[in-house]
């Protein structure tokens, strides 16, 4: 288990005073200070980690958020922001000596602007709620993480969420136009708007995916797109995962960017089929779902090209959806893969590395070795188009040592992802979960530069500490520059 920073007794001793001050800012039920009522906030989607916060505060206005942060900044109190609490990396894990700042009451769509194809929403609006607000006119918000019914737009900004369609339509960072944000000092600032690109530095790029370490987002402007005319899916079974991987590479090599391209391995196929009866073939090693969207003429043409490529790569089963109902059925198994695996194992641990796609066979074979080493089963679902792998490690938390073995297994997988040229996390975030693995991907200089950026936003290190970065340094130390005096300038560089 990853250790959180030691609670600061000087803050805990002031708890009564802090709670009272917060009640001054947010009246009524907006401040929760008793243990029973705070229980729902003790964990997010990474349920192995639990911690009751010092106090929960649920503001309703940007002005309240500003006052809360201003107060906490002045008093040296840590703050953990929380959206819908669906993070799979522990991004919203509370701190014993910290205020948990919930944005759940920021749940309104503020403006729908079809002429400029933009929606302005409060951060607590769900991802799907954003699409629901505009689907009557045939529009949608493109990023669609599988938790989209529950997860919030603000949380999507914090984690730079993806989804099954991001190969073609991009991640959150490609679909957000602007934010209103409150800095740890309480200052309110706007970055972007309905226009494109930034004046000066592109702060949006920093804020999206910053895991709640740079500021608290209080409003989000996203771009919306018109729904494609049609979407059709292919369900293709392969005798080996190598053949399936080869097929993915050839589809992209042929210049086709499908709306979605997902792969499942045998254990995942079996679990999903047993759960939702999607009609998946059970005698294949790998299953590929390829979705093509656009005008009908384009879809049917690309369908033929993809089918030909699949056959060429040794596909043993191939089905094309002939109705919207059938397309949704193909997806039903994939979308239910996590709960399906949840049914066959008391607990599972979901990983999120990304690899260069060509390394898939190597990574899968190594994973089988790890599986034997740790004595734990693993099922794989894979955003095949962009190389984002979700191994689900099956374990039983009630069995002595299994959680630790699952975590060790997961860490081995992530180290392997980095070794083959990939990264620790594709879309779930570093959070608490992968914090201590950061040095496998970044050296100290790399991490120091990131920490200095953090200091530019939060000089006291009060916003969501203990997440993302393995070591905390005081910003004053980070800012120092060691100059080697007396060194001659450019001793062996060519000069002109």
């Amino acid at each position, binding site marked *: 288990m990853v250790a959180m920073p030691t609670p600061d007794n000087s803050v805990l001793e002031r708890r009564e005073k802090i709670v009272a001050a917060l009640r001054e800012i947010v009246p009524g039920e907006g401040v929760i200070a008793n243990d029973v009522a705070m229980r729902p906030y003790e964990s997010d989607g990474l349920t192995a980690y639990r911690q009751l916060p010092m106090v929960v505060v649920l503001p309703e206005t940007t002005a309240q958020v500003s006052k809360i942060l201003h107060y906490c900044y002045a008093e040296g109190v840590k703050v953990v922001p929380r959206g819908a609490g669906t993070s799979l990396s522990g991004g919203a894990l509370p701190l014993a000596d910290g205020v948990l700042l919930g944005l759940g009451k920021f749940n309104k769509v503020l403006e729908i602007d079809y002429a400029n194809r933009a929606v302005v929403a409060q951060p607590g609006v769900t991802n799907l709620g954003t699409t629901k607000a505009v689907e009557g006119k045939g529009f949608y918000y493109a990023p669609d993480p599988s938790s989209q019914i529950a997860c919030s737009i603000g949380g999507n900004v914090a984690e730079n969420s993806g989804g099954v369609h991001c190969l073609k339509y*991009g991640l959150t960072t490609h679909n957000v136009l602007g934010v209103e944000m409150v800095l740890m000092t309480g200052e309110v600032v706007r970055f972007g708007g309905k226009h494109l690109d930034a004046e*000066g530095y*592109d*702060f949006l790029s920093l804020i999206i995916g910053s895991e709640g370490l740079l500021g608290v987002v209080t409003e989000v402007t996203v771009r919306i797109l018109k729904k494609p005319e049609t979407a059709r899916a292919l369900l293709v079974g392969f005798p080996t995962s190598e053949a399936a991987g080869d097929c993915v590479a050839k589809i992209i090599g042929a210049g086709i960017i499908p709306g979605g391209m997902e792969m499942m391995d045998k254990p995942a196929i079996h679990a999903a089929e047993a759960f939702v009866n999607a009609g998946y073939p059970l005698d294949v090693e790998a299953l590929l779902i390829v979705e093509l969207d656009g005008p009908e003429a384009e879809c049917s043409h690309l369908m033929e090209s993809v089918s030909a490529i699949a056959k060429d790569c040794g596909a043993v089963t191939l089905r094309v959806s002939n109705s919207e109902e059938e397309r949704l059925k193909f997806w039903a198994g994939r979308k239910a893969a996590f709960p399906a695996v949840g049914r066959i194992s008391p607990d599972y641990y979901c990983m999120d590395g*990304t690899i260069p796609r060509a390394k898939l066979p190597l990574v899968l074979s190594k994973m089988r070795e790890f599986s034997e080493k740790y004595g734990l089963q693993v099922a794989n679902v894979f955003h095949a188009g962009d190389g984002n792998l979700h191994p689900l490690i099956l374990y039983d938390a009630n069995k002595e040592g299994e959680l630790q073995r699952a975590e060790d297994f997961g860490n081995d997988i992530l180290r392997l992802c980095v070794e083959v040229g990939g*990264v620790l996390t594709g879309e779930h975030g570093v959070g608490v979960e992968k914090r201590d693995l950061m040095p496998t991907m970044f050296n100290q200089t790399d991490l120091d530069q990131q920490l200095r950026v953090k200091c530019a*936003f939060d000089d006291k290190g009060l916003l969501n500490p203990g997440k993302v970065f393995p070591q905390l340094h005081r910003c004053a130390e980070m800012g120092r520059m060691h100059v080697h005096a007396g060194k001659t300038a450019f001793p062996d560089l060519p000069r002109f």
Partner: protein
Amino acid sequence: MQDITKPRDANDVAEAIASAAANEKRMELIGRGTKREIGRSTQTDATLDLSSLSGITLYEPEELVLSARAATPIAEIERALEENKQELAFEPMDYGPLLNKTPGEGTVGGAVAAGLSGPRRIKAGAARDFMLGVSAVSGRGEIFKAGGRVVKNVTGYDLPRLLAGSWGTLAAMTDITLKVLPRAEDCATVLVSGLSDIRANEAMSAAMGSSCEVSAAAHLPQWPADRIPELNAPGKAITALRLEGIAQSVAYRKQKLEELLRPFGELGSLDANRSRAFWKSTRDVAPFAGRTERPVWKISTTPALAPGIAAGISTSAGARYYFDWAGGLLWLEMPSDKTQEGAVRTALAGRGHATLIRASAAARASAEVFEPLDPVRAAISRRLKASFDPQGVLNPGRIYAEA
């Protein structure tokens, strides 16, 4: 004469910057120097010539990824991509024609540092949207890397995207990894002629709000339209909408788009070859090329506000203009050598941002080249600059006086 240092590799760059920091020297970063006349006029003590850092280091078409040293010419990258029927989908514009320089000379590092994007910005995204990873040297003289070589990555802050558009003020990029995409097999452009700015804006909005997957939308009033030879329709304003994809799809969507636009005005079209030439001219601001004494402004705003802003500046300053990005990008040329900054900023009124792209050094010294920031953003910009470059070694003052 100014000291010029020409590093051979990233270690040289680190040593040069560390040394400059130790000696309190300020450096101007250049690749091939094609955009030196953009930005605030700055005083530096030395030039860091990065042009030796050139060459593609990794290209895997099936993984949609390409890495290159920062000063690799864009033209070299585009040639390599073309051989595999791929492209840089953000369609980086070339400032060569506008600044009266040889076209096609820019580098990938320069394109990224200046945040260059072309007409496809509205569909495919900006240069930063294709940044996967970077290796760079900070103003401390430290080599750091961020991002990776895979498309989906949320490990740590997105510094590669941040460096895009930072004009070399945060770090000297040495290696860049970009996402690349398949090049469309076919393209066509639907034209509507004779529309007013407001009506054209409505037509572009209707097209963008359709399922036709328009990949570029521009409106050129008569004067700039007359200066794009591919249009061959003198005396009329032209609204142009591009469709790209496989041939069957382009043909189908063209028909659909024509149906949608018929009520707006007289229709015409450009075939694939003329489309490519037209959009290149539009991308590179060909209508305003040549007259280098006349300041050119670039405005990014909410598309629907653009006609009003253009009319305001045209009335008060006599500017010529045209719209790209479905109205969201406004190019303006001033009638004399005066920048007319007051007229531009008054008309925009903070609803987006205006950048003075072309102006004499003297004019750039007396105007704010980039959109002025409110105090909170200005302060955080200074802190961000200091987090990379505490002593102000790298391109100091290129964007703002303190950054």
